[in-house]
């Protein structure tokens, strides 16, 4: 599983699993507004923590992908698996990690 994940990471870095561009638009809008409802429009935090590159530093992709897909029980972070697949979550993390 670990191997598979890193393989997935690798291929997504090579753009193979990036969502198509119109889907990227939808995801960016989702990130800005719907994730932004808790993390802030500028992702500097709100009810949820800030999601700026420095906040995510040192946290592995698969850990953050799991957070997005499954949410975190006992906290306000909801699961998004119904709306976002693993590749899309990984792509979103790439967007979050990129300095703005």
């Amino acid at each position, binding site marked *: 599983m670990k191997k598979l994940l890193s393989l997935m990471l690798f291929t997504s870095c090579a753009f193979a699993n990036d969502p198509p561009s119109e889907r990227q638009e939808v995801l960016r*809008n989702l990130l800005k*507004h719907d994730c932004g*409802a*808790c993390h*802030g429009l*500028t992702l*500097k*935090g709100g009810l949820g923590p800030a999601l700026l590159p420095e906040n995510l530093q040192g946290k592995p992709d698969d850990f953050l992908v799991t957070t997005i897909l499954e949410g975190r029980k006992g906290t*306000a972070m909801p699961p998004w698996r119904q709306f976002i697949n693993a590749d899309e979550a990984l792509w979103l993390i790439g967007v979050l990690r990129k300095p703005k």
Partner: protein
Amino acid sequence: MTKLLPILGLLISFNALAELRATGDLGVVIEREQGNALIFNTSQHKQLAKIEQLGDLSHASVVFSRDQRYAYVFGRDGGLSKIDMLQDKLVKRIVQAGNSIGGAISQDGKLIAVSNYTPGGVKVFSSETLELVADIPADAGDGKLSKVIGLVDIPGQRFAFSLFDADQIWILDLKNSKKPDITKFKDIGKQPYDALISSDGRYYIAGLFGDSGLAMLDLWHPELGIKRILPDYVKDDEKLPVYKMPHLEGWADTGDYLLAPAIGKHEVLVIDKRNWQLVKAIPVAGQPVFVMGRPDGRQAWVNFAFPDNNQLQIIDIKDLTLQKTLTPGKAVLHMEFAPRGEEVWVAVRDDNQVVVYDTDTLQEIARLPAQTPNGIFFSSRAHKIGF
């Protein structure tokens, strides 16, 4: 010259006439992404001005001075802006914290309180100068500052608010603003996420994210402490995921009933204020965000969290049933009723519009352009407790 004078006088008075403006029926529409506040004449559905560069307004709210001349805008980035609605200009803007969630104006109109996430606490400012009057860090005793939510004005020159991370409700008394007095209620229930004050200023009720039911404080009987209402409603393990926290401000306080959004369930709760029992849970289209009562108390309008945020449902209070479902557009974020309720204005973020409905026929009356609108605030709020 003597001939000229009367003409000049006429010109001046004409000018003054053109500029006369009353402020009792103005409204402020927040443009989330641009960080603007639009000033509308709400009777004429007409935009009068745009006040720009108010910072990050992604979660913004507005209170009004009681002469209805000034609007105070609370931004996400800790910004507090004072707008003169007579002259369409920004009077002053300060950034008073790193991250904030809302604010309130005191009973006498002289103080503005802001609730902050970082640094967690409440800051109080003079409404005239925006100078700091009191700084109340939300230190729950362990040195960590809690995020503050559900800040409202209550009678007696006081404010009430809740500590999300510390499960407390505080009452801040500013009768002597140099010596703020705080009363703390602890262990009120886990993670209060927002709160409301009844329209008479008597009951302060906080919704709980991490517990079932709501925490209620009767301000006429503070000695009785916090009462948990609907304690058996929605146990943690039955909760659906919540994609946006419900808002309790603007709740429907209609006669004997209080209507509030359930959390983690697609229901609107009808609570009997006489005994705090659940009268009915009305199934609705999604996770409700706002449940707002028409001023006459006959209807409640409900909007929803993602992914059901294209809809708007209307509950008929007469028999507590759904009257109609409307689909105004993509991402319905907020509503505001005309002071006596004949119209409601609805912010539709992704369609860049404010949609106005006739609340009697439920027909659309107008669509007003606004970029990513997320909040609508009419100056009639100036005279209402809790707004």
